[in-house]
Every structure is written in structure tokens, then in C-alpha cells.
């Protein structure tokens, strides 16, 4: 027995508890004695055991209300149970060295501050991942997808979004559009993509690019642009989305946001996930503002390199921004391509240095054919 030196309170070494033999569900009352090198257990049936601390593991008694449970042996072990957590504190006092690996009830008071810290860290990490981690990861992943996969993906999406029967297929218009694309892509040299432009018979003023080289213009937009330069501007912008793989990046962002949400909700199969999933989809597959600016910048450079007048892109955006007499719903292009004053200002700065004698994107006849593509088909 350890002696008391007067100043220090003698540890309580005898505890009432229970013993489970691991063979029957019978709880035997037991006296457990704390020794410097192990536990001495005396059961109500008169059995006496000595358990060295090194052979004991603690499996319960970490949280308020749990009894302390110590087990010895392999898979189906014997166990002793002591109701009071003070038992653990005394164990640490009696056997500080071998007892160090057991839980100390004093540690529990750190839990509240630790929980708060963890919560703050989680919020910080999630915010940082959402703001920087996921976009960076999406860019990295998008860059490694083979072009053939991109084309497959784009093909499938094209069938959904612009089914053949809803396309305007007037041959003269299609030829003129091809001419425009060839003129625009000439400065790019060899790219892995085959660009194709479709006109969809739908009223909104909008355009979108799909992975793998498909660009879809909606009838509303084709009828709304005033000059071939404006159309060339829109196309140059959309081609940049293809070249920079923005759609793939958006897809990867979408998927990793899903993983993040799954990590936050305790049960990824629960009903919450469905609610959150809906919210996620709403914001999904819209390009980020950064992607739009990249496309603007790259588009303007492409127009310059092709010897075209880049002001068409600016004037089209400005014209849409002014709105005016249009019925609502026509300005969809702005809702998916957010226009900001600074976006136009930046574009103006880039397009300040323009070719003195710009080339016309298409001839007058081709321009007319494009403008009336859907009318002729109908």
C-alpha cells in the first residue's frame, strides 16, 4: 500500500464494481483494488485475479454517465465495471506511469473549448475549400480529362439541349457560320477540338458552349445581334469556354461540392442531402465570374489576332445592359453571363488597341443568311 506523507491525500485504492467473465451474462459484484502495477480483483464468488495495467484496455467511461469499463484478453474478453469516473483519477494517482494511457476525467473540461475550436476550424476549412480548394482541384482535374471523353460528354449534352429537330439547318446560313468559325479559329493554330456551331430554334437571347467544341446559339440571339462583329464577339467568347474547359471545371466543382456536403452532414443518405442537393443544383453549372472574365479576355484577344474588330463584343453587352423596350425573359444572356460595369470597362481597355483596318467577319450575303437561318427553315 502506498503511504501518505500527510500533505498529500492518500488515494482511495478500494472500489466496488462488477466483474463480467465473458462467458455468461452474469454480473458478479467485485472489489477492485488499485495497485502500482495492476488491478487486483476479488469477485463475490471468491475468485481473485491480478490484471497488469499493460494488459488492460479501457473501452467505456470517456463520457459523462458511462461507467468505467476495463477489459482484458482478446476478442471476447473479461471486463470490470466501476460506476464512478473518480476511479480513473485515482488510478492515475496510484499508477501515474502505467496508467497514463487511460482516460483522465479531468480532460473532459477541455472538451467544450475543443468543440468550439473544431467548429470554427470546420467553418474555416469548408469556406476555404469552397472558395479556393474546389476551383483549383476542378481546374487540375479538368486539364487531365482526354478530349475524347469531353467530346462524348458534349455529344450527349447536345442531344439533350439542342435536339436535331429543333435546330435551324439552312445550308447557306450554316456555311456562313462555318466561314466565321474558320476565320476566328485560324490564329489558334492546331487545337484538339473540332468546333461546330448550331442555331437552336428558341426565342431567348442566349448562347452556350459544350465540352468538346459544340457551340449553340439560340435564335433569339442571332436575331438580336446587330452586326457581324457582335456575333463574332459572342462566338469568340463561347469558343474560349470550350478551349479553357470551363464546363468540365463546373462539373468537377459540382461533384466536389457534393462530397463536401456529404462530409458535413452526419448521414449522407439522409433527407437533408436531398434538400441540399436541390440547392446545389440550382447554383450549379453556371460559370464562375472568373471563368466569364477569362472568356472575355481570351475572346477579345482572339478577335484581335483574327484581325477582326473586337468592339462588337462590347457593344453587344452594352446594348443588352441598357435593356430598354424588351419584354422580360429576353435578356437570358445576361443572367448566365453576368454583366458588370467593370466587366465592360475591362473589355474596353483591351479592345482599345484594335486593327486599323479590321477584316469583315462574313460578307453581306453570308450575314443575311445567318440572320434568317431559322426563318428559312420554318
Amino acid at each position: 500500500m502506498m503511504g501518505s506523507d500527510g500533505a498529500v491525500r492518500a488515494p482511495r485504492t478500494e472500489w466496488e464494481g462488477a466483474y463480467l467473465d465473458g462467458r455468461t451474462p452474469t454480473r458478479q459484484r467485485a472489489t477492485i483494488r488499485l495497485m502500482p502495477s495492476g488491478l487486483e480483483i476479488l469477485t463475490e464468488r471468491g475468485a481473485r485475479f491480478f490484471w497488469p495495467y499493460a494488459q488492460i484496455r479501457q473501452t467505456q467511461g470517456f463520457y459523462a454517465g458511462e461507467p468505467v469499463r476495463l477489459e482484458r484478453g482478446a476478442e471476447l474478453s473479461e471486463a470490470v465495471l466501476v460506476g464512478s469516473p473518480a476511479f480513473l483519477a485515482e488510478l492515475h494517482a496510484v499508477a501515474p506511469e502505467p496508467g497514463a494511457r487511460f482516460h483522465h476525467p479531468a480532460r473532459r473540461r477541455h472538451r467544450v473549448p475543443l468543440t468550439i475550436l473544431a467548429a470554427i476550424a470546420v467553418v474555416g476549412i469548408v469556406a476555404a475549400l469552397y472558395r479556393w480548394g474546389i476551383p483549383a482541384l476542378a481546374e487540375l482535374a479538368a486539364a487531365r480529362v482526354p478530349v475524347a471523353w469531353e467530346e462524348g460528354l458534349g455529344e450527349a449534352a447536345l442531344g439533350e439541349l439542342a435536339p436535331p429537330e429543333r435546330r435551324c439547318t439552312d445550308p447557306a446560313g450554316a456555311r456562313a457560320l462555318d466561314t466565321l468559325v474558320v476565320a476566328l479559329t485560324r490564329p489558334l493554330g492546331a487545337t484538339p477540338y473540332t468546333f461546330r456551331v448550331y442555331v437552336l430554334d428558341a426565342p431567348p437571347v442566349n448562347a452556350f458552349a459544350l465540352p468538346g467544341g459544340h457551340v449553340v446559339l439560340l435564335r433569339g440571339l442571332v436575331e438580336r445581334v446587330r452586326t457581324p462583329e457582335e456575333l463574332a464577339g459572342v462566338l469568340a467568347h463561347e469558343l474560349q469556354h470550350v478551349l479553357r474547359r470551363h464546363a468540365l471545371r463546373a462539373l468537377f466543382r459540382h461533384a466536389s461540392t457534393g462530397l463536401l456536403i456529404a462530409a458535413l452532414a452526419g448521414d449522407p443518405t439522409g433527407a437533408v442531402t436531398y434538400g441540399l442537393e436541390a440547392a446545389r443544383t440550382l447554383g450549379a453549372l453556371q460559370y464562375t465570374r472568373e471563368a466569364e472574365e477569362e472568356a472575355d479576355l481570351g475572346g477579345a484577344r482572339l478577335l484581335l489576332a483574327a484581325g477582326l474588330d473586337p468592339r462588337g463584343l462590347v457593344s453587344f453587352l452594352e446594348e443588352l445592359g441598357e435593356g430598354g423596350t424588351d419584354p422580360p425573359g429576353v435578356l437570358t444572356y445576361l443572367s448566365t453571363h453576368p454583366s458588370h460595369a467593370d466587366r465592360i470597362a475591362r473589355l474596353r481597355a483591351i479592345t482599345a488597341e484594335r486593327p486599323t483596318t479590321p477584316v469583315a467577319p462574313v460578307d453581306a450575303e453570308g450575314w443575311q443568311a445567318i440572320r434568317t437561318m431559322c426563318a428559312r427553315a420554318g
Partner: protein
Amino acid sequence: MTESDPPESPAASEAAGRPAPQGDTQRLYFHGSGPTLFGIHIVNVLLTLLTLGVYYFWGKIRVRRYLMNQTELLGDRFAFHGTGKELLRGWLKAALVFGIPLLLLGTLPPFLEAGPGVQSLAALALYCLVQVFIPVAMVGARRYRLSRTSWRGIRFSFRGPAVEFLRIFIVGSLLSLLTLGLYYPFFEAQRYRFMTVNAYFGTRRFGFDGRSQDLLVLYLLAVLVAGVSVLVTSVVVAAIAAVLAAAASALSPDSPLHALPVYVLLFPLFLPTLGAVWAWFSAKKLRYFWDHTVFGDARFRSTVTGRALFRLRLVNLVLLVLTLGLAWPWVTVRSTRFAFRYLTLAGPLDLETIQQEAQEATAMGEGLSGFLDVGFDLG
């Protein structure tokens, strides 16, 4: 939380406790608290993020261990013996065996621009694989969970062969389809029976003496009540819709309102009535299953009501949605307390006659169960 605390367990005050006199009515008590579980959960989330997901399995074990350790019967706590390592290993194995074929079958054909014949064949194979996968997974998960759970040092176990459950599943699904659902109550009773009578505590087996016919009657009754309630609600909705449409056309003859079927807007009116019928039926079914479940000479008894079940589910859903899932620990605590509040076990337990008889811990289904532990919560 709005739920009241469960009655204090007789043994909670008497820590050293002797077994309560047998032949009494016993209850399970849950002592866990929402804030503590939240602390565990948020640390799990943090570590899962920091380890790129690997810690997920250890976190899951910590939560389950806490829930078991806070559950008490006759003054003694349950214990959970699973480890994160085995859960991770099981998940990896299952991902290899099932995950990869599923992923390939699901994504490759459209990518390879396969013909429609190949695509529908792949879809069929995928469907069959999932159909096999679900019952095998359910058995695996139950086997894993029970084998890792103990009370007073004695392990639970599950000894039902997956093949038998697969047979029940395939036959049951087909017959339910062929009989237009009439067979479904029989199918459900068979599933419950299989899951119950193959469960053991040590050497003692659980039993089920419910009859499929009783369940069929219950189902028919539920369909009848639901039909009447839909009919009544439809009449009310139609009346409101007629009034609204008349008002709309009186106000402006060109209004698009009467081009649109107004009752579409009134559809949510069906939710409270159908929800109430569903809750009433679920509670009745739950009571039936528990009241026919036995453990030796002792019988379970449930007094759960539809109203209470409806309230629990509704409040849980609102809590989760409003907090974007952060209330998950409180919802879990509420649900566990709820489950135990209405459940008793009456009759002699004769614990002395029970021996330890744990089943092989690394059973064949363990890999799968580990994987399924992630996706399915059917235990």
C-alpha cells in the same frame, strides 16, 4: 429539445446494481446528449476533412460506440466493438467487388457511344447487380453490426445465410409485381422474420410469431383509409379550384390562370392527410412487428402511436433542413430516445441459461457490410 427525458432508470442511481428481479417488465434507456454527440460529430468532420475522407470510418465507429455506450438495459450498458480499420478495409473490398463493376456498367456504355442494344443490356446488368447487391448488403450489415455489439460481455450475432435472404427478396419482388402488390405484406413479413429469427444474444435466439395474413389485413385497411382521405381531399381541392378559377376569369378574362390547372397549385393540400394516414399505418405496423417479437420467454411490446411518430419525423426534418444538417446529433438523440420510450420487454429473461457464443468476426460478408455501412442504414 422538446422531447421530455425518459424516466430515470432504476439502476442508474445504483451504479453497482444487481440484476433487477426477473419476470419484470424491462426497458431500454438512452442517456446520450445532443451537445456531446455534436462535439464528437464536429471533431469527426474536421478530421475527415483533414485526412481527405479517410477518418470517416473511425468517426463512424466513434459515433456508434457513443450511442451504444449510452444505451442501458438492467443497469448495464451496451458496448460496440467495431474498429475504423476493419470498416475501411471492408469498404475498400466492397468497392473493389461491387463499386467498380457498378461504376463501369453505369458510365462506360454512353461514353463509348455503344449502340442502343449494348446500352440496354448494360442497364439490365446494372439493375440485376443492384437487385442482388441490396439483400446481400442488408444481411452483411446486420451480421456486422450484431457481431460487434455486446451486453454484459456477451456478443449478439446474426446467422442467417445471405443466399436465403436473396431468395426471399427475388421471389418476393416478383410475386409482389405479379399480384399487383397483394403479395407485398407477405414479402415484408418474411423479411422481418428472417432478420429477427436469425439474430442471437449469445446462445439465445430471437423469435417472431406474427402472421402474414394479419399484415395483409392491415395493408388493405391502410389502402382503404388512404383512398377515402384522397377522395375527400380531392373534393375539397376541386371546390377550391373551381372557386379560384371562377374568380380569376371574372377578374380578367385573359388571365393565364384558367389555362393552368389550378389544382396543381393546391397539390400540397394532400400532404397533411396522406402524411397522417402514413404515420398511423407505420405506427400500427411497428407495433405489430414488435408485439410479435420474442426473446426466449420474454416478449417485446410497443406502444408507439401514429401521432407521436408523425411529430418526431416532422420535427426532425424541420430541424435538419433549417440547420443545413448541423442538427444531426440532436435528431439522432431524439430518435433513439423515441424508439426506446415506447418499447418494453416483458417476461422472464433467464439470463443464467445464456452462454457466450460469438460468431466468426471476419465473416464473408464483412467486407460488404463495411461498405454497406456507408450507404445503407437498414440495420
